[in-house]
């Protein structure tokens, strides 16, 4: 596709339910990032994938959060037993290769609301 695609765009769920968020990166981009953005705040790094290397999970806030990516394709972010503090926009970005000299291309995010 032309850009990074995320789905769903909005998700409302009850506290305690599991949710799965999907990110389809730009074709050929080897690096994929997940971020969390609370209302009016900056980006909080969650996890980073690079090709078939072990992901950098250092930003995941708890063991309720997990993510997978197969090769250089789609990634899913799963939040188990959701809590109200998980309410936020979850943004996915990809870049051609990893590194601080690479622009990141973002999807429009999934707005998650926990009731």
């Amino acid at each position: 596709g032309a850009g990074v695609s995320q789905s769903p765009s909005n998700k409302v769920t009850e506290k305690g339910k599991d949710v799965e968020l999907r990110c389809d990166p730009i074709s050929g981009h080897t690096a994929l990032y997940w971020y969390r953005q609370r209302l009016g705040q900056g980006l909080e790094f969650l996890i980073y994938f690079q090709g078939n290397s072990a992901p950098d999970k250092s930003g995941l806030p708890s063991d309720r959060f997990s993510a997978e990516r197969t090769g250089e394709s789609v990634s899913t972010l799963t939040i188990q037993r959701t809590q109200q503090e998980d309410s936020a926009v979850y943004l996915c970005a990809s870049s051609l290769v990893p590194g601080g000299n690479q622009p990141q291309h973002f999807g429009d995010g999934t707005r998650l609301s926990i009731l």
Partner: protein
Amino acid sequence: SQQGEEDPQALSIQEGENATMNCSYKTSINNLQWYRQNSGRGLVHLILIRSNEREKHSGRLRVTLDTSKKSSSLLITASRAADTASYFCATDDWAGNNRKLIWGLGTSLAVNP
């Protein structure tokens, strides 16, 4: 943790005026990037400046970098209502893991018609 801090947190100007936003960071860097985020959308990359560069231009955007002060500024000239957005700076970490960007908290810019 946040590396960068943008100031001001919010800025309101009239169309046609220039807007200046600043970003300060803590560690030595290789690169600094600026992004724009329109309401309800993802971030869009605007410009990247390397640590050995002092100034860079792209259309109505001018970015400066002062590594001795660990700061950068983004100037938008002749602003338009469509420039209304949040602006974020992001840096890598020269000494650390430079595969991740570290983000500031952003400046919210409102350009009034």
